C-alpha cells in the first residue's frame, strides 16, 4: 500500500524522549502495549514517545481538552525515557518524506471524531512498518500547535538490534496554554 522501499529512514538514535502516565498505573512507563492509538489497533505492541515534555502533555490534552483548566490538579506524571534505538525508523516528519512513500502528509494529524476514520491510513502504515525491518515511525505531533515530533516504537524493548530503554525517570510536568494544544474534539 505504501512504498517503504522509497522511505527515508532515521539513523540509530540515543537520547531522551517523553511520555505521560497516570499516577495509579501499575505498569512501567516504558512498557510497550497493544494499545489502540494512531499507529496501532491492538495487533502489535507500541510505545509512543514525544520529543519534549510539553509535547507529551499536548498529546494528553488533545484527547481530553476539558483538563486544560485542571492542569494544577492533574494526577499524571511526565517521564523522561532515555532510549537507545539500534535499528532504523521510518521518518515522515516532513511532507516530502511522507509523499515519497505515497502517504498523504495531512493524515498524520487527522482529527475526525470517529477513530476508525481518523486513524485508518496511519494504522495501515503502522501495520506495514511493524511487519518490516523498521522498528518505529518518527512523525509530526498532532497534539501540539508548534513544530515538534513524536516517535512510536514497535515491539518489545531489548530485542537484539532493535531498541532499548536505558533509563526512565519522572520530570516536572509543564503547563500548556490552550493555544498550544490542537484539541481533538
Amino acid at each position: 500500500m505504501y512504498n517503504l522501499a522509497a522511505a527515508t529512514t532515521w539513523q540509530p538514535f540515543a537520547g531522551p524522549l517523553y511520555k505521560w502516565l497516570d499516577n495509579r498505573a501499575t505498569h512501567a512507563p516504558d512498557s510497550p502495549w497493544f494499545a489502540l492509538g494512531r499507529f496501532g489497533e491492538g495487533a502489535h505492541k507500541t510505545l509512543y514517545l514525544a520529543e519534549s515534555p510539553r509535547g507529551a502533555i499536548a498529546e494528553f490534552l488533545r484527547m481530553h481538552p476539558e483538563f486544560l483548566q485542571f492542569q494544577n490538579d492533574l494526577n499524571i506524571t511526565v517521564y523522561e525515557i532515555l532510549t537507545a534505538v539500534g535499528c532504523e525508523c521510518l521518518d515522515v516528519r516532513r511532507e516530502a518524506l511522507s509523499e515519497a512513500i505515497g502517504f498523504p502528509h495531512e493524515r498524520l494529524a487527522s482529527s475526525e471524531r470517529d477513530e476508525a476514520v481518523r486513524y485508518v491510513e496511519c494504522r495501515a502504515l503502522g501495520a506495514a512498518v511493524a511487519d518490516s525491518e523498521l522498528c518505529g515511525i518518527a512523525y509530526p505531533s498532532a497534539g501540539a500547535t508548534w513544530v515538534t515530533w513524536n516517535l512510536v516504537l514497535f515491539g518489545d524493548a531489548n530485542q537484539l538490534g532493535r531498541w532499548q530503554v536505558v533509563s526512565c525517570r519522572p520530570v516536572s510536568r509543564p503547563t500548556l496554554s490552550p493555544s498550544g494544544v490542537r484539541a481533538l474534539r
Partner: protein
Amino acid sequence: MTLLDDRGVFDAGTGPMLGDNPVRPFDALPQRSSARAAPDADTLERARRLHSQWGIESPQKVALLGILLARLAEVPFEDAAELLDVRPARLEKLMHGEEQIPSRIAKRWMVIAEALEDLQAVLKPRATARWLRTSIPALEGRTPLDSIKRGRLAEVRALTASYCDEAFS
C-alpha cells in the same frame, strides 16, 4: 475489682494477665467462652429482621456505598446525592443503615464507582466536584453530572475509561 472483673468478662483465671500472679502457668488461662452472655431474644429478633430486610448482598452494597462516599468526599453532599440518583435525605438514611440499598441502585453505583476510579487516576480527588460540572466536548458539551442525570451514564463511563489510555492520537 478490676473493670474486667466487674463486667464479668473474665473469670478468676484471669490473674496472670492482670499481673497479680506472674508465675502462674499458662494452662490456667481463662476460658472466655464461659463468661460470654447469650444474646437476648430482642437482639436475635433484630438480627433476623435486618438479615431478611437487607439480604445476603448487603455487605457488598454497604462497601460500595463506602467506596463511593470516599471518592466523593470533597463533592458537595447535594451533588453527591444527585450523582447517586437519590434525595439527600434518603442518602443520609442509606449512609446510616436505616434504609436498604436497592439492587437497581447498586448496579448503577458500581458503574459510577468505576468511572470515579478512572477519573481520579488522572485528576486529584479535590477537583472531582468541579469536573462533575465542567462542559466536556466528548459529552457533546454537557457536564458529566448532567449527562448522568439524562441517563447517559455509559457515555461518561466510556469517557473516563479513555482517560488512562496513554497512546498518542
